[in-house]
């Protein structure tokens, strides 16, 4: 009788829990090349959250150039979380729309960047144009594919990586670095709005001799299109790209999704989240995952935005704002 009653209570309780199970929707507004990462991650997080709370989470994704995505959120796209290419774009959401506090980056470890990446070169198989480093990219006659820094976060990383290399080469001479980057953009025939578009241009449309790409994007291209079609060339110097993540407080509060959204970004730091990042060719922060995936990345000397350019605010103002250096050197 006792056992029967216990079973009955358990069944009733489980039915109560099931009856209370909620369907929750989140919108993750992300930058261009993270489709595959978040496809894997969202499935894992949904399973985790369902196991923990019994609730069903469905995460909708929006992808595009990081700058464009930030503007969309500022203009009213109701993102519960943003996972963009650079901190400046999330700062813009905070400053222009006041949707999250100014100190958002301090709320998660490693300045809210659960994974990092860098910039490498994707070239045609056999590297017919013998591109080994940034010097080769700026040679006359080399066709370079890179997206538009006015809209794409990846493009801004590309630009700054080239500039950082030139500074290193020419003893921190800004004039020579500017000339170097000017020569690079003279070799760019078309500007996509985002990194994924640039990959499409290079890989599917067959344009260009070299694609300046996120490291993860380059490896993904080889995985998807075949190692017999492309090679990856790691330059001697590149930039540490730190794409951050954040909960958009006001939107999450309006949707009643604050708790889930917070768990969503935090789970990126979990062992499973870090493993998914590594599997998708991002460089995990977690030591265990970083060690596991270390062999898939080539060693490269990395510099940071802070150390070379004084931070994103300064870099954005100097190079990418309207009338900045990019506008001066690139004439379509």
């Amino acid at each position: 009788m006792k056992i029967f009653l216990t079973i009955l209570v358990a069944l009733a309780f489980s039915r109560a829990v099931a009856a209370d199970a909620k369907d929750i929707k989140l919108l993750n507004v992300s930058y261009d090349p993270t489709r595959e990462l978040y496809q894997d991650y969202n499935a894992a997080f949904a399973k985790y959250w369902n196991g923990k709370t019994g609730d069903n989470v469905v995460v909708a994704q929006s992808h595009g150039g990081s700058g464009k995505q930030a503007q969309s959120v500022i203009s009213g796209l109701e993102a519960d979380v943003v996972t963009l290419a650079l901190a400046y774009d999330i700062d813009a959401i905070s400053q222009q729309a006041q949707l999250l506090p100014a100190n958002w980056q301090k709320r998660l470890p490693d300045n809210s960047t659960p994974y990092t990446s860098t910039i490498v070169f994707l070239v045609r198989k056999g590297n017919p144009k013998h591109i080994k480093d940034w010097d080769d990219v700026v040679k006359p006659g080399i066709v370079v594919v890179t997206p538009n820094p006015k809209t794409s976060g990846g493009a801004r990383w590309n630009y700054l990586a080239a500039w950082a290399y030139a500074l290193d080469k020419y003893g921190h001479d800004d004039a020579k670095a500017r000339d170097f980057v000017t020569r690079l953009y003279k070799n760019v025939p078309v500007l996509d709005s985002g990194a994924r578009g640039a990959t499409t241009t290079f890989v599917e449309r067959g344009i260009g001799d070299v694609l300046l790409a996120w490291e993860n994007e380059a490896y993904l291209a080889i995985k998807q299109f075949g190692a017999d079609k492309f090679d990856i060339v790691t330059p001697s110097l590149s930039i540490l790209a730190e794409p951050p993540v954040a909960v958009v407080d006001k939107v999450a509060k309006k949707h009643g999704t604050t708790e889930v959204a917070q768990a969503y970004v935090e789970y990126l730091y979990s062992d499973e989240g870090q493993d998914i990042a590594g599997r998708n060719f991002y460089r995990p922060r977690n030591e265990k995952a970083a060690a596991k995936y270390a062999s898939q990345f080539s060693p490269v000397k990395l510099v940071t935005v802070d150390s070379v350019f004084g931070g994103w605010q300064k870099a954005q103002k100097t190079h990418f704002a309207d009338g900045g250096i990019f506008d001066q050197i690139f004439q379509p």
Partner: protein
Amino acid sequence: MKLNQLILASLAGWQFVLPVSAADDAATNALGTAPAEIPAYTAANGATANPAETAELEALKKEIQELGQKVQALEQQRALDQQAATNVAIEQTQDIDQKVRVLARQRELDNEAAAAAAKNQPLVKLDSNGFTLASADTNFAISLHGLIQLDSRTFFDDHNLVNNGFLLRRARPIISGTVFHDFDFNFTPDFGGSTVQIVDAYVNYRYRPELQLEAGKFKSPVGLEQLQSDANLFFNERSLATDLVPNRDLGVELHGDLFGGVASYAAGIFDGVSDYNGTTVNVDSDNNKAFTGRVFLQPLKTSDLNALKGFGFGVGGSYEADRNGATGLTPGYTTDGQQKFFTYAAGVIANGRHWRVSPQGYYYYGPFGVLGEYVIADQEVSRTTAPLGSADLRNTAWEVSAGWVLTGEDATYNGVTPRHPFDPRKGQWGAWQVVGRYEELKVDDKTFAAALPFAVSTASASAAHAWSVGLNWYLNKNIRLNTSFAHTAFSGYTGAIPAVPAQAENVLFTRIQLAF
């Protein structure tokens, strides 16, 4: 030349031939290898060439060898040049291929950008419904509509009481729109008649179709014919029944459509206006408020019974606990020809409760439409001059209007849309409709009580009844021509002739209407 010299020359010549042939052979057989040695000619008798000839032959051999090498080099160079030219052509082709790919990709990106931009482009629409400008997401919109009615009235047997002529009955630019998706607004001034007035000025919040909140100046929800759009009336002027209902009023109203429009309701608090008044009123004339409401049902609107879908009925009403003042009373009741046939006597004021109730209904099926309503308007009044006193006066009115679209289009509460807009070049003549109406208005008998009169029979009639017939021509959705004849007879008037209520009113109406 002597014979032996000739023979020697021939033999010497033969010495040339053999080495040249051998050199040719060498050049043909192995490019770059030295031609084979040609033995010195030895004649059959054992004689050989002399040293001078040998030297000459050697020189010739050497020259031939050099020529062979040159030919070889030239052919090698030609091959290299051809290869180089091919490489250049390949490079140029690849270059052109890249340029074509770049152009195609740029075009692709431009198209994507244009498609993305198009999603944010405002919508601009100009058609028979007017001009509309809206944001891409339609959350913001502004529309310009208009109503212009140019009438003529010709009175017969009126003893020149009334001028015949044309008048600009209505000239209304109608500005309406939406902000932030759920908030509609309307501002309508009227430049017709002799004064400029604000007819409508309101904001409506659409939480859901079933639940909306309207505030401002707009039609009070009582009379069925009054609520019908000015552009869609059967006749030029509304009936005597509409004399008893409020026109526009200022207030707040909750309203909505339920069950897909099967039922609609409205309930509001307004300043309160006297009978058929309100268009020119923009402030409250007293300290009291009127509660106004209406329920209207179209029970078979969503059924499969087509013949009964257009059947609707309801009731509207208003209640004001304490309406008072001279301005609280109606300025008077008018005929179809807009001539006043009843006014309250001087010194009579509204003084107390004022209520109305109006059962109403319509039926539309195919080209046939009929509309009717009955109105009771009850007002407590008082005299401020001797003899002092008060009374509760109850005036009533009713009307039935009907129309038949001769060309077969559907008649609706919202007008007639011609199936074939007027275009004589195509043999299209628009839509034609015949209409008829009967109407009555009766003032409470107590109004004219000899002991305590609130109106005088020498100035006002106590009742009016009228019939009208007409023909409407809908050229298209925007242009309409009307003509009708109305006959109104009066009762209870005992005053001097000529006067409006002293004889029947016979008036011929025409109208040219532009509505968009």
